[in-house]
């Protein structure tokens, strides 16, 4: 579809929208017209922008606002960026879009948490990462980080702090504030986490139970929030890179790749072909490693601890490949702006050649040990269904989304690095159950092995890193980049004012949307299934708690 149609449609709804046209359309909308544009983009038969990839809070200095990064799943991944802002810095209010795109529910809470923008008609507006008694909004440019003037609360956070939530409702008399209790007093609430064997990090789920049946889930985040986005604003671009490995530590290499690509795109740097291949190999190895761990954890959450050890055993071989060439295991620090930091180690190719047949043999064992096991099948079959519409609306990307029949593989949709030079099929299932999510991961391991075979055969000789300036400055502007990490659509947004530091960095975490989808698919199932469905979604908490 042509950009001009989108432009026309937006202008027909809001004539005074400011539209910039690059590869995609960027439309600045007055805040009161936002919902109309959003509804038009979502519901129009021709447009169907049904996937809200990211919702980015911004402090432009004079104004506070939000950037909506929208994609159309049916229309060839057309992208539209909406911007809206308010000049009222004392009490900024915008309209919610959480009823249009479900994934916005958590995103808007995050924006409220960091920028203090209140969303009218949001179903439960409260802080997402920070505590309820936190002073100020830390990602605002005028936030005082001085601990003396703006002390960090030292009181123990109690469960009562999580009991209620605020809301803003639009009535005839204007916007009315209110609050409500999340759970009834009579409900049997179990706190799963932050320390719990099966939350894959420090996720705190407040689960309301009736017997063994889950009635309601309320996720609480922020137990390991490190303020990475705020830290990035004070770092130079090469320094930002090391933080990306610490987001989703299981696909650190891929996250780092995303930031490298974004910066390279911004400064117009030509990366050597060999570096592209090396990075792609690393990405696929990381994906295999992550899926092996994901598989193992899911087996362990279902009680099969031996399978977990087997997964870890085979993942170790990949870790060795990383360590030999990159010098680190999880925090590989291998990609740098312009290429990779070293050329590959002489053993690199041979190790991968040895690994591929080994892994194929082990995959067969995995299938016999667990996939075909009647107990495991009994647990996984016919449970935790996520429909395609739900997956898109909640923004469940990656293997979990593909299990629901949503082709969302960024490697195919917007190929980067060497992905357009090799043959591969995105692994898809249509049913969207727990078993499908499980099997898609193992299928992807197999597909990644095929990709590795092609990549090591095709890898060209030559430079491994392009020369960069000592101090990298990105020209003024906004840059988006997305890659497919092991859990889904990982997005990087960099806004630059032309300095050596970014003005704002936002990472689109695929895990946050995964957790938001946990609630609709688990309610009504047993508590044992909550653990298993959570494992099948395969979220990693540091990716959420940025």
């Amino acid at each position, binding site marked *: 579809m042509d950009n001009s149609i989108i432009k026309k449609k937006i202008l027909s709804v809001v004539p005074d929208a400011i539209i910039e046209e690059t590869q995609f359309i960027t439309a600045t909308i007055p805040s009161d017209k936002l919902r109309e544009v959003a509804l038009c983009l979502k519901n129009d038969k021709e447009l169907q922008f049904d996937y809200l990839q990211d919702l980015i809070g911004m402090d432009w200095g004079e104004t506070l606002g939000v950037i909506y990064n929208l994609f159309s799943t049916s229309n060839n991944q057309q992208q539209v960026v909406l911007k809206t802002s308010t000049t009222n810095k004392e009490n900024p209010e915008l309209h919610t879009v959480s009823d249009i795109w479900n994934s916005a529910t958590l995103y808007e809470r995050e924006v409220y948490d960091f920028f203090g923008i209140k969303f009218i008609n949001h179903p439960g507006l409260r802080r997402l990462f920070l505590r309820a008694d936190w002073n100020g909004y830390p990602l605002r440019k005028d936030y005082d980080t001085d601990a003396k003037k703006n002390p960090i609360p030292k009181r123990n956070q109690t469960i009562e702090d999580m009991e209620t939530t605020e809301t803003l409702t639009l009535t005839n008399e204007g916007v009315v504030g209110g609050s409500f209790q999340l759970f009834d007093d009579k409900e049997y609430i179990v706190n799963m986490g932050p320390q719990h064997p099966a939350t894959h990090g420090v996720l705190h789920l407040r689960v309301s139970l009736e017997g063994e049946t889950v009635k309601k889930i309320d996720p609480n985040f922020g137990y390991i929030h490190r303020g990475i986005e705020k830290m990035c604003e004070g770092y130079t671009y090469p*320094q930002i890179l*090391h933080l990306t490995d610490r987001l989703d530590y299981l696909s650190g290499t891929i996250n780092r790749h995303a930031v490298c690509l974004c910066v390279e795109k911004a400064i117009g740097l030509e990366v050597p072909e060999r570096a592209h291949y090396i990075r792609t190999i690393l990405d696929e190895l990381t994906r295999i490693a992550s899926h092996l761990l994901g598989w193992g954890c899911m087996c362990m959450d279902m009680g099969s601890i031996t399978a977990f050890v087997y997964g870890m055993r085979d993942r170790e071989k990949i870790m060795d490949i990383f*360590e030999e060439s990159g010098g*680190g295991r999880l925090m590989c*620090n291998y990609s740098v702006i312009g290429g990779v930091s070293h050329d590959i*180690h002489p053993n690199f190719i041979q190790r991968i050649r040895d690994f591929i047949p080994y892994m194929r043999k082990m995959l067969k064992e995995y299938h*016999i040990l667990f996939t075909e096991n*009647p107990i495991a099948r009994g647990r996984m079959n016919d449970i935790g269904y996520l429909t395609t519409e739900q997956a898109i609306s909640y923004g469940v990307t990656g293997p979990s989304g593909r299990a629901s029949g949503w082709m969302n593989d960024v490697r195919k949709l917007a190929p980067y690095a060497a992905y357009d030079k090799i043959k591969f099929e995105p692994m898809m299932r249509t049913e969207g159950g727990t078993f499908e999510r499980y099997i898609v991961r193992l299928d992807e391991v197999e597909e990644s092995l095929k990709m590795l075979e092609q990549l090591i055969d095709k890898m060209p000789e030559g430079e491994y890193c392009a020369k960069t300036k000592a101090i990298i400055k990105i020209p003024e502007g906004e840059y988006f980049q997305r890659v497919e990490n092991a859990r889904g659509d990982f997005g990087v947004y960099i806004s630059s004012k032309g300095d050596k530091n970014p003005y704002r960095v936002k990472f689109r975490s695929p895990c946050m949307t995964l957790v938001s989808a946990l609630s609709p698919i688990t309610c009504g199932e047993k508590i044992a299934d909550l653990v298993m469905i959570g494992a099948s979604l395969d979220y990693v908490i540091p990716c959420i708690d940025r």
Partner: protein
Amino acid sequence: MKSVIAYVKKILVGLWNLILGMKITWLNLFRKKITEQYPENRDKLVMFERFRGELIMPHNANNEHKCTACGICQMNCPNGTIRITSKTETDEQTGKTKKVLDTYMYDLGSCIFCDLCVQTCPSDAITWSQAFEHSVYTRAKLDKKLNREGSKMAEKVKPTANETAIN
């Protein structure tokens, strides 16, 4: 009758699959054990040469290092792990003053091994060692001085054309 046969068949197929699964664990019972026997294997344990264990400043036989105290590593370090103090020294023969390294402090406790210091060092004065046994009793011991006592900067050897290309 058919349903009974299907019922029995389902149970038997399930049992067969359980037995196949048990075969896999049985095979693994006799496979080579994969765990590292640390610290027993300490003598034989060789880390990969690129492994980033700890930042070091190599000195040659004359107790000379290559650091010019330019401070680029300190500037690039995201965590403030490196602190360089320099002093000015007057060359007795020529009378020129130049900046030389006084202390090169490296705080292992806050290092995140991002490799930026080594990558950006213009004179290759620092590198990584493969030591990984970092535990000490007090945090102060993690703050290490990398230049040795009484060491001085090595005379600059003009880099050959080949080396410049790599850098």
